[in-house]
């Protein structure tokens, strides 16, 4: 009896989760059909993978911002760690594993591990801070990661992998290949990222976050977010759970970064700057903190929007800003919220939800 209760569709939470999975699957099927039947323009087809990567970024940052309640402004840093380590791994594995999907999957796993290590190292000092201070320091670490990658050289020759910082002093043997070239980044990447791979990554990320939220760890994250002192008083290890959320989020961002990078032939560290971090934060805030579906819809919409506004040339970013402001105001307007609440078929069953708003 209790068993059935755990997967009960009458619960608001459970319904929201299955609705999210359902919408993502439907959206994938539609996009995939449109893409294979060439209804989708080639620019749009090229954006499918970045959209998936941004969706994963949105889910990943939502874990930190929405569920753990800590503002992080350096999330693009983890994405770049993942992008560089993932792509480098893919290039190194090129001859060993010729089958692209396996190579992509392995590259994403390696990217996730490297980003998780970065998240852990950054988490040690950062998670001692609270609120605004934490946000500022994560911003700084995001910039530090960018600077390091801008000055990082890595090559491979018959003697193995060589590193150097600041300038190319790897002294590769003849026949060696410089993979990461400081500010030039990595070029000549094989575009092995595919839309189905992106879709699978989105689904895995959703599964990780949703399943975690309904477990002891997820409850601990949210308990610490809601009341730190009370969380300590019931014996929750604050440092451990904050670190867990931060590292997991970094790992997901790393995998997304690898997926993102392998959709382009060239990748540079400057792509993952402060603006990208803010863009990801905008996905989360626009979609609603803690709301995964909202976050991924916002990620898709805000990635497509600048492309769709291209016809307005000079006014493109102005319009983008105006649309963003109107959407933010609109979604916070009580009248508009009530109007949408009326459209919700489950509304009468959850009266306490409206009080929450």
């Amino acid at each position, binding site marked *: 009896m209790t068993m059935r209760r*755990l997967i009960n569709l009458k619960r608001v939470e459970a319904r929201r989760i299955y609705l999210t999975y359902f919408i993502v699957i439907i959206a994938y099927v539609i996009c995939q059909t449109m893409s294979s039947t060439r209804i989708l323009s080639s620019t749009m087809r090229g954006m499918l993978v970045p959209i998936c990567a941004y969706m994963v970024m949105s889910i990943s940052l939502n874990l930190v911002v929405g569920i753990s309640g800590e503002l992080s402004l350096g999330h693009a840093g983890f994405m770049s760690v993942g992008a560089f380590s993932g792509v480098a791994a893919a290039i190194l594995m090129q001859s060993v594993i010729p089958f692209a999907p396996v190579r992509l999957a392995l590259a994403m796993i390696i990217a996730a591990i490297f980003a998780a290590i970065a998240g852990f190292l950054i988490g040690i000092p950062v998670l001692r801070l609270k609120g605004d201070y934490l946000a500022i320091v994560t911003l700084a670490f995001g910039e530090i990661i960018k600077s390091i990658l801008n000055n990082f050289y890595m090559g491979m020759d018959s003697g193995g992998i060589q590193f150097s910082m600041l300038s190319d002093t790897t002294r590769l043997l003849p026949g060696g290949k410089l993979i990461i070239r400081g500010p030039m980044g990595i070029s000549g990447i094989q575009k092995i990222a595919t839309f189905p791979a992106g879709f699978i990554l989105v689904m895995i990320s959703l599964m990780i976050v949703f399943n975690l939220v309904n*477990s002891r760890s997820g409850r601990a994250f949210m308990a610490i*977010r*809601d009341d730190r*002192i009370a969380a300590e008083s019931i*014996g929750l290890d604050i440092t451990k759970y904050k670190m867990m959320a931060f590292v997991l989020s970094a790992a997901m961002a790393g995998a997304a970064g690898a997926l993102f990078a392998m959709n382009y032939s060239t990748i540079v560290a400057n792509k993952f700057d402060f603006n990208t971090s803010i863009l990801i934060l905008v996905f989360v805030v626009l979609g609603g903190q803690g709301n995964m579906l909202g976050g991924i819809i916002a990620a898709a919409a805000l990635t497509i929007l600048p492309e769709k506004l291209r016809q307005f040339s000079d006014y493109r970013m102005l319009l983008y800003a105006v649309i963003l402001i109107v959407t933010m105001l609109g979604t916070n307007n009580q009248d508009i919220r009530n109007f949408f609440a009326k459209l919700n078929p489950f509304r009468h069953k959850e009266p306490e939800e409206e009080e*929450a708003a």
Partner: protein
Amino acid sequence: MKPKTKYVQVPSRSILPDRDIAREPVLECINLGITLGGIKAVDNFNLTIGRTEIAGLIGPNGAGKTTVFNLLTKVYQPTTGTILLNGKDTHGMNTMQVNKAGIARTFQNIRLFKNLSVVDNVKAAMNNEMHYNMLSAILRLPNYRREEVAAHRRALKLLSIFDMQDMADVRAGSLPYGAQRRLEIVRALATNPSLLLLDEPAAGMNPSETADLMDNIRKVHEMFQIAIVLIEHDMSLVMNICEGICVLNFGQVIAKGTPEEIQSNPAVIEAYLGRQSSHKEKEA
């Protein structure tokens, strides 16, 4: 369920020594003190709580009652003195470790996890008795399901003590005030404490709610056979429920004893009502 307490005569420094079953008290405070901003908020505080005792901590506003709770739960580290919990020194422990060692508390200003459901508030407190790791949670492995089902069942059982099992899925923040206070007690109990600290559990409750609360505290005491210390301004509750009372004023213990002794203690009356002579002097 554990057998009912057998009352045996043992020498103890507990407020009511003859009611202790175990020779070893659950809590001993020895010369406990803290200086906050140059003021001795609590000074030379000695208290011993028997294993199944209900004790009251009373005193005028600002007497340092909540500070004592904060010292016991290590929200503040004491500047002097020792706290022995089940005979073990809690020196150097933090709030989390003290909770694991057996102290659970509620708060004067309610501190629930507002955005979690009622049952999740209780299950969050059971975190330390669940052992599955993150991977089993993500993959929904059998041990995840088994432990979650067990925890859910136990959470509902605990909620049912306070007749809250029907509210299990309601958001904690949208509960009525009295229910929020009760949920705090349930959450504290979910951590399996040997000592439960209740900080003004009846604050803001009407007389009938207070009477219900009194029954519930008795019920909890009976069921779990734990020690309970409560801070309360509602004297009818304190005098009815507590076996021993400790009175604080300006951070000092001014009286200890049974409710009857406290009610007739001149120092206590003075602390609450002021000295008669000084009152007359003011008038003159």
